[in-house]
């Protein structure tokens, strides 16, 4: 069985040591390098080519968001889990836009880290339960406040299925194979649902899916 190669980036040594212990309790996980700032993380990733990068958001020299952006551009195959002290959706959206697919609150890093690494390694999104809960609650409150129709109701069953698959990180080709549809049909569904929801980017779709509870 091939092991998941992981790069750990955090400026706190104690934190790094603790997280390394957590990760290395999994027999199929391997921490290939540790970085103490963003610049070092990008350099070490290019050297070791890890499959997953676990990255602190607030680091000196280059912060976690910028480092994620550079990593995604340089190594599109690498999945990123962001560790953050902030649960606010502005931070989550920024992390997603920078290319991260996992967003973990540091306080719950220990119990959720394994699941997060496995999820992003499989191409899926992962959020700390506290974060997804907050996203959902705020969304529901906003819907009530504005008394607008929930656009989710406008989607067909097929479109909802495709929304979930996009949020889980599947490509058009993978979806076509899974659903037994032509690539063209998948692309049409994808265009329609984005138009109905008035969303334009994959990160926005992921946030939306979390808010709707389509993924967690």
């Amino acid at each position: 069985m091939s092991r998941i190669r992981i790069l750990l980036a955090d400026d706190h040594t104690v934190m790094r040591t603790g997280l390394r212990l957590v990760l290395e309790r999994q027999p199929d996980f391997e921490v290939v390098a540790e970085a103490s700032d963003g610049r070092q993380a990008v350099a070490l990733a290019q050297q070791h080519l890890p499959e997953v990068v676990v990255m602190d958001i607030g680091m000196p020299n280059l912060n976690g968001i910028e480092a994620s952006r550079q990593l995604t551009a340089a190594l599109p195959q690498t999945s990123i889990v962001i560790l953050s002290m902030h649960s606010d959706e502005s931070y989550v959206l920024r992390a997603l836009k920078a290319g991260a697919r996992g967003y973990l609150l540091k306080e719950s890093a220990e119990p959720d880290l394994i699941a997060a690494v496995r999820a992003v390694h499989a191409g899926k999104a992962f959020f700390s339960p506290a974060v997804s809960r907050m996203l959902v609650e705020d969304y529901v409150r906003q819907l009530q406040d504005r008394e607008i129709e929930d656009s989710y109701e406008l989607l067909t069953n097929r479109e909802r299925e495709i929304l979930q698959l996009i949020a889980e990180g599947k490509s058009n080709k993978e979806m076509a194979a899974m659903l037994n549809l032509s690539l063209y049909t998948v692309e049409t569904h994808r265009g329609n649902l984005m138009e109905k929801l008035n969303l334009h980017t994959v990160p926005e779709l992921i946030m939306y899916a979390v808010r709707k509870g389509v993924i967690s």
Partner: protein
Amino acid sequence: MSSRTVLWVGFGSLLALMIVIASSANRTLERIEASNVGIRQEFLRRDAILDRLRSDLYRSSIDVRDYLLNTDPQLAERRRAEVLKTENEMAAALQQYRRNLPPEESAAVDELLRDLNSYFSAVEPVLHWDAETRRRRGGAFIGGQMLPRHQQLVQLAERISQIDTRQLEVGESSLARVFVDFRRELVLTAVLTILFGLALAFLSVARVQALERESQARYQEVVLAREELHRLSARLVSAQEEERRKLSRELHDEVGQAMSALLVELGNLASVLPADNDALHRRVQAVRKLAESNVGVVRNMALLLRPSMLDDLGLVPALNWQAREVARRTGTKVRVEAEDVADDLPDEYRTCIYRVVQEALHNATRHAKAATVKVTVRREQAAVRVVIQDDGVGFDPRHGKGVGILGMEERVRHLAGVFKVESAPGRGTTISIFLPLKKPTL
């Protein structure tokens, strides 16, 4: 002595001086008038007596002549009585004339008296002549004795009259001198009064100018003090903000991170504990819970001090977070509409807008009991406009401007902005601020 006392005394004495001058001038004029009348009356009295003397003399001369030339003894006797009576009258008139006699005249008047006595002494024996003697010696007496004496008396009376006239002229000229003196005195006092008045006026003007300068200086001081106060309060606000930013970062990055590391290590600790030791696991779990709740406390404290979004993500994410927080905490619906607001706003503008919105939301939920609040941020050419509108109970801005509103106003003024509150009881509250994006030159 205060200048007010000086002015009171000055103007009071000026007024008193003018009254004194006027009344003394009036008195002097009255005195001059009276003495003028006296002099003339005295002159007329003497003149009248002299006239009487002259005419009495003529009459007595005529009586003597008639007496001498008349042969009728009865008629002669009447003339003689007339002459004696006239003599007595003239003596009485002369006596009257000698009253109040000026010394210049006394010699002439004495001479007149002497001559008159000698005239009558000469006439006296004639009055006892019999008719024969009168006829024989009468003509000779008239031509040789009476006429020359009569002539001399008339000349004397004339001289006295001239002296009298001269006296009158002397009196009048002395009066004229008094009048000239009086005029000089009047002019002098008028000039003195004018000078005094001018001095007083100069004093008043100088005093008024000094007062004006003083009040100008005071006003300047007040203006400077107020500016200084504004500068200080601006520095205070920015120092407080800086302190909050530091504290917030410190709490978040140091304490929060350390607690998170602690949590991870606790997890690791739990994983190496013997699986069957439930008591130990429970103890570790309790410590975990404690640490978790501490992380929450630290995070909330940091956000309350200064939300990290304001520095990490910019104004709009911070406002959105604030809106969500208020909605979560109070149930008030808060909507943020921000268009074209780039995150390149300078820090002090971001902070100012964020703090104003924070305070306005606080007021709207705490005091106004608003159900919905709308926050609009719009970027204009070289300015930012922010409007916070609520549907709460409102208030009368003329009466109660709370400390919160004054604080907002102060923050906006530091950035040379315009702050406006519109509200009325039952009509909600609208706060609008307009911030020009040029750095004010303080």
